[in-house]
């Protein structure tokens, strides 16, 4: 997602200004140590650096070229799959259990990368169960449990 420096710099400068302005709303108790001091400095420097980057790149502001991967449906699907997988695990694992959700995620991810469906299922089931077992029973991490975890316990 290559953007001209002008736009990324401008974006960060805007975020920096927002950080500094928002910090002015923090309550300041009596004394020398103000909770708004460091955020204000950080926001100001972010705005300054962002502004300098934007200034440096203003000549190329119009050179917006779409990245090559956007023209490939497979690559777009692979990119979109990652946030979808993280969100799906976060929302579904507490209801269905970690192993089941990650098995599906692994299988689909393998297929998207070009693995044959049968091999992808084998990868999903084996890696899903093995890594879940490792985290839950060897490392003692209470991953969200479902019926598969109950079977394994």
């Amino acid at each position: 997602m290559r953007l001209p420096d002008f736009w990324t710099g401008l974006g960060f400068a805007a975020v920096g200004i927002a950080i500094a302005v928002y910090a002015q709303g923090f309550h300041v108790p009596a004394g020398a140590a103000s909770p708004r001091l460091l955020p204000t400095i950080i926001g100001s420097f972010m705005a300054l650096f962002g502004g300098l980057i934007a200034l440096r790149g203003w000549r190329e502001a119009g050179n917006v070229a779409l990245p090559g991967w956007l023209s490939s449906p497979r690559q777009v699907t692979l990119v979109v799959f990652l946030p979808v997988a993280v969100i799906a695990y976060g929302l579904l694992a507490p209801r269905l259990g970690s192993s089941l959700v990650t098995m599906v995620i692994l299988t689909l991810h393998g297929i998207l990368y070009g693995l044959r469906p049968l091999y992808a299922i084998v990868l999903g089931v084996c890696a899903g169960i093995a890594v879940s077992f490792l985290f839950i029973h060897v490392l003692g991490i209470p991953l969200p449990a479902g019926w598969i975890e109950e079977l394994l316990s």
Partner: protein
Amino acid sequence: MTAFFDGLTLVMQADVLVTILISAAFGLFVGMVPGLSATMAVALLVPVAFTLSPVAALATIITCSAMAMFAGDIPAAFLRIPGTPASAAYTYDMNDLVRSGRLGDALGMSLLCSATGGILGAVILMFGAPLLADFAINFSSYEYFWLALLGLSCATLVAGDDALKGWLSLTIGLFLSVIGLDFVTGIQRYTFGVTNLQAGIGFISVMIGAFALSELFRKATGFGEKQAEARLGISGAPLPRMRTLWDQRNHIARGGVIGTLIGALPGAGADIAAWVAYAVSKRFAKEPERFGRGSVEAVAGAATANNAALSGSYVPTLVFGIPGDSITAIVVGVLILKGIQPGPLVFVNSADMVNAIYIVFLLANILLVPLGIAAIYLGRTVISIRDAILYPVILLLCLYGAYAVSNNTFELWIVLATGILVWIMQENNYPAAPLILGLVLGQVVEQNFMSSLIKADGNIINFFNRPIAGVLGVLTLVVWFYPLMAGTIRRVRGTAGPTDQT
């Protein structure tokens, strides 16, 4: 001596030894895969390390990073692609040596030099760090504030070729460090009413997002690009002849010292150490013309330096609590999470722990030799693992690793947000390492700044009143403003020059 034996007892526990073996195998595996760095290996291991005892957790990180550093040489030798950035300096030399059937002079030499460099660095760490700690024991919040600020200035060193973008990345990390409850007043900052943000942004989640998930995004956009084939076979003995090794003794010794010293500089890690040692080895080489075309001298000097730098980076980490690179930034985080505050007092309060770190360094580098030989033989199989198997498993480790941080799905959202942010940043040439430096050092800077400000009752002059604080303060200001001053002077001279000529 008692502390040394206490440290030895801590290390010689079954759980620690098993952890060392497993993390060694994991480090070798990740290091061998081109594109996966030692930092990524450590980032993926941190959630696991968090569940272990402090010694086992540190042993995991030390062993994994040492192994990954050497393993990065394996794809460099077979594929001409460095497995980790620290192997980049001598990739062509390694590949040309393997092509001419001299496996032992390439990977064997690199293996023995890496182990020697790691041990040399550990010995310097053992003797140098306590001396420095004795000096630093009287440091107050003023000195620590300046040291942390000096550490932040190293963002330019880890920034790559665009310092301005490095500074901006640093401010993002600093901003992340102020999210949550203010440690002096308890006021909520940038939490927007989200309870999970009150404790701040966890650095483990940020690490996983910045170094693992962002890499998956990058791989996804590069899917289908032509990949190098493992064309070279394994021929010849895996280790060099003793005579060849002895001939390289000066390069090894020089690489070890250079690596340790560069590693000890905050911000300058194994990558820079390898390049500097490569250049210095060429300067003193018998056959400098062979550098870049299969030089054993190049491999000996640079491979020693990158592993020695790993040990060296623990000097500022342990003595001042200032991380030397992104791996030691993780170490500082793990130490604090485990209730151990790095700094000069750690040598008094946790002497057994410090000695355990030395012993783990020695043990990991000794173990590197047999495991490294096995890795050389397994190397070709591992580097040909298909993306379709590797990346789904890494995604799974990201998901479980993020959840394991606090047994809460909220960490997943931090991983996702950081992963997307860092991916976009890297696509636009904004480096990620300063962001991590800012996140880790941000709290140190603010806590010491606020403590000092309260002590000084708002009088800034007190920040320079103590002799060491004064020197550090001036040094920090020079480091921060030197590029600006130098640029202005250059510009003035540039405009003055043509005028003189006319």
